């Protein structure tokens, strides 16, 4: 059952083709890795799928409906959420508050509700849910710390917690383990597996090959905005074209 389909997707910036005639089909329950050398178009792909950019050509189909012209908030409402390569947080807020704010889709309040304070019960429930997520990501002890004071690895974990707060069906992670030490990477790996076990499909862009090979059920390789090849992790590791594309860059760990 395909949860996401990308059909003949192209994205041009002026004369530059960041994505060119890309076809992808992601099935429910997958952990799909998107890899490729720098500049291959991975983050552009995420930006197009999540509504930050409109496709120049082609379409993005999520759960059977065309989402190509929707805005990021509309797409999030449908259950498709992404994290950012840059650390995107609500800096001035505490860890817990960051995740509580991200419960937005599951909180209802109008202006009169705000003035007369009628949504207290739902707010308490949302804060409880946010706390669950914060603890799930291993940030329980830091829940009252300001997001901007967290060390890098924890900030990235918070970014994932924020995305999870929306209760997505498809979660797109953009380089979730960048800048983490091996222990943090292992921890994140386990968490991502747990997230998938809860029934969330995962699309993962990563450079760290150990993480990619250890986590992904299937891998698509991009180069110069096009799909180079796809396959099981073992197949990709042995693929000559993929190794060549990476030559001069990172080696694929055995």
């Amino acid at each position: 059952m395909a949860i996401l389909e990308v059909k003949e997707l192209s994205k041009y910036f002026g004369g530059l083709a960041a994505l060119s005639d890309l076809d992808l089909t992601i099935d429910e329950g997958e952990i799909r890795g998107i890899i490729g050398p720098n500049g291959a178009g991975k983050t552009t792909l995420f930006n197009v799928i999540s509504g930050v950019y409109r496709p120049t050509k082609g379409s993005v189909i999520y759960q059977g409906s065309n989402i190509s012209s929707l805005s990021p908030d509309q797409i999030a409402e449908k259950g498709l959420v992404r994290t950012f390569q840059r650390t995107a947080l609500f800096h001035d807020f505490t860890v817990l508050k960051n995740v509580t704010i991200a419960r937005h889709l599951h909180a209802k309040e109008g202006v009169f509700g705000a003035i007369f304070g009628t949504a207290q019960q739902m707010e308490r429930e949302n804060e409880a849910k946010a706390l669950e997520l914060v603890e799930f990501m291993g940030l329980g002890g830091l829940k009252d710390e300001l997001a901007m004071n967290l060390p890098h690895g924890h900030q990235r974990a918070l970014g994932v917690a924020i995305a999870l707060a929306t209760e997505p069906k498809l979660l797109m992670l953009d380089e979730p383990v960048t800048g983490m030490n091996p222990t943090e990477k292992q921890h994140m790996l386990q968490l991502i597996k747990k997230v998938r076990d809860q029934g969330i499909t995962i699309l993962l862009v990563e450079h760290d090959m150990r993480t990619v090979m250890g986590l992904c059920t299937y891998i698509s390789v991009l180069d110069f905005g096009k799909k180079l090849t796809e396959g099981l992790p073992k197949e990709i590791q042995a693929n000559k074209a993929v190794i060549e594309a990476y030559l001069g860059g990172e080696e694929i760990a055995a």
Partner: protein
Amino acid sequence: MGALAPLIIGLCILPFFARAYVVEVAMLFFIYIMLASSYRLIVTVHDWQLYHIVLYGVGAYTSGLLAKNFGIPIWVTIPIGGAMASLVGMAIVRTLLRTKGWGFYIATFGLAELIRTIWLRFRTPFGGSTGIINIPYGPVVAGIDFSEHIPYYFFVMGVMFASIYVLYRIDRSRIGDSFKAIYADPLLAETVGIRVPRYRLLACAIGGFIAGIAGGLLVHRLGAVDPRLFDIIAMIYLLVWVVVGGYRTFWGPIIGVCVMQAAFEFSRPLMQIRPLFFGLTLALVLVFMPGGIESLIPKAVARWRRLRGVPTAATG
């Protein structure tokens, strides 16, 4: 919050012991606080638009004209003035939805000028460059004459506190959280499902309404309206209040109005160089205290705690 009670009591006693002039100035303070707080809401959720002062004017003209030409009582004209200002503000935002960067600021200034030009060009009904006079004051209700300065003072104070309360409740609510999220990182806010354009429109609607009723309150005290009250100089004063006071929290603009208007009042002998003084203050604050006066408060509190030997916990 407990500090508020003596303040409110003080404000309630003030008009009975101070000169009439001080009471008039206090009323202006209340009106300016409404202006600055409403502008701050729009600034944090949307952008530093340059037409807010004109919404104040729309409220004033609407209230004044309805009262003068149709005899409508001020209790009705003032909210209608607010609604009118809100609608004009929303219309401007809708028009400029796709405008970004410098174009946005110029466009907001341009649209403000357009509205001012309409007031100046059309002697009927707007009175042209001399404005409108003989606008009715407040009526007599239950034996209290609201054209007198003391009753009107309490009226303005009441409306101000009500407006601040509404802004405060919104700030503390889920909507306020969404507003702050948009301020912190609009793209991230969108990604978690916050409909940024809608929230921006909401902020502008609320901010415009409060600016409009501030205009209505003004016009029924002055008995007249003059287009020069809503020009670019006045807009700059509004900017100064919000920047100097700070806009990170809800309290900043209130501090800004109090400090700058107090300075304004005490600088009367230096009338000529007042704009210079304001401009200089704005520049110095932007360079040395970009968070505004309110950003000094946590630091001052921390230092005071240290001096008293209280162990400083991590302050948020």
